[in-house]
């Protein structure tokens, strides 16, 4: 089994850096033909099929990372599920799905929020920035590079939420000490325990 090369900020971009496509590729390779329910792919198609037939579906316009999407959604759809399952913008992660972990953090109209605790319909017309919107023309934002440099993650599942939260935190200015950074990053849990690296990365990016 060949391991993917370790990605460092100075390296060239890997041909396809998406962990999701790597996972799908690996799953196909591992599971052979039995790969139908792949990582929400089928669920997303189901959701798409349902929404067309759903008489309760309502029009929702989501401006995500500068691109406007017009959708018809079941009103029960959270912003998180709209991003992941309907728009295939999967950088934002579902952790606890009840506002306790912060993995789903996105920036809406300049403010960080938990996308699992708001309905997509409540965010119609607002400007949403996800982790995919942080880098500028392929160049990582300062905080993203600092996370890599400072080992601000291990498994990476919480990282997109940590990054969105950190970007907003730096803008808010609650970064006058490590204690303050910790308190104002407390809405983002990292179960690998990379808090030292996260605080250092934020401090370096102020």
């Amino acid at each position, binding site marked *: 089994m060949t391991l993917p090369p370790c990605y460092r900020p100075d390296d060239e971009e890997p041909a396809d850096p998406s962990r999701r496509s790597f996972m799908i590729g690996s799953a196909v390779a591992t599971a052979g033909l039995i790969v139908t329910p792949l990582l929400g792919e089928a669920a997303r198609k189901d959701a798409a099929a349902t929404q067309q037939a759903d008489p309760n579906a309502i029009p929702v316009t989501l401006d995500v990372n500068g691109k406007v999407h017009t959708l018809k959604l079941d009103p029960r759809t959270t912003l998180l599920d709209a991003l992941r399952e309907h728009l295939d913008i999967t950088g934002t992660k579902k952790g606890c799905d009840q*506002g306790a972990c912060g993995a789903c953090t996105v920036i809406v109209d300049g403010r960080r929020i938990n996308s699992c*605790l708001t309905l997509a319909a409540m965010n119609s017309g607002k400007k949403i920035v996800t982790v995919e919107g942080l880098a500028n023309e392929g160049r990582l934002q300062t905080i993203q590079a600092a996370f890599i440099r400072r080992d601000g993650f291990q498994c990476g599942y919480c990282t997109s939420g940590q990054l969105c939260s950190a970007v907003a935190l730096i803008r*808010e200015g609650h970064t006058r000490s490590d204690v303050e950074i910790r308190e104002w990053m407390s809405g983002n849990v990292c179960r690998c325990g990379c808090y030292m690296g996260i605080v250092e990365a934020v401090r370096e990016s102020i």
Partner: protein
Amino acid sequence: MNPFDFVREHEIPAAVKSGAREGAKFIAGGTNVVDLLKCDVERPTHLVDINALPLGKIETVSGGVKIGSMVRMSDLAANSHIIQNFPAISQALLVSASPQIRNMASIGGNLMQRTRCPYFRELTWTPCNKRNPGSRCSAIEGENRLHAVLGTSDACIATHPSDLAVAVAALDGVLTLRGPAGERKVNAVDFHLLPGNTPHLEHNLKHGEIIESIFIPDAAYAKRSAYLKIRDRAAYEFALASAAVGLDISGDTIRSARIAFGGVGTKPWRAKFAEAALVGQRPTPNIFRAAAEAEMKSAKSYGQNAFKIEFMKRTLVRALTDLTGGAA
């Protein structure tokens, strides 16, 4: 999640009309409602989004400050007039939830949030009188370390989770409500209800009514106020015990006191006995302790939460000590 239809209202009369329909529920920040929709504890058939209502202002008015119910927790906490004149309000908000949730949650919704009792939120296997009247309280004989010791009944011992509501109760807040029958005002201390035999009735808000604003009167005790919250971890956690305290001290005598407790009561707990024990006294450690004893006389333990009785007393003593510059 139960199916519902969704409408966003922009004007108060239209919102009240939408909200008065059978099965309708208002949603503001969503931080509690969306969670309870997912748990199936809340099962509305119509959801009315009131975030666009013109209730987002913090205004200094004659005799106090008027806070629109759609103001977000983070904005109220950071407001300089609030920090200067009502520090307990700002402090209570800053120790609530997380920065993300404070950016979302509204002030009105914060007062309306429902208990975090795990039996209330877990409907697949546990009885709960609040969720299913008459089914029994699972916490009384169950895991109740986090439950209330004040204002409890044989039907319910769930705590009210809000920190803000504790500070608002202490500082004599007054709510303006609006519904199909017009406007009315309710004192914050009368807004939340004791469980008694009807723990499913939690507040003094009729179906279709919304909270429009919260008024907090200017006062010396409001200006000299603070909020102390003690919890299992240092951040992002509900209170084991908390105290909102405000003192008006003239010379070395306490002229008036405002005190409310969180984390220990079935509603935001205005501590009238503690207040009475302080008025006319010098602020000393003995008097602070006596005030705490006076209020906690009626406290009742349910086993695991027995520690909260002494814990609350010490929390109050520390809050008052800090507020008086360590005089105690």
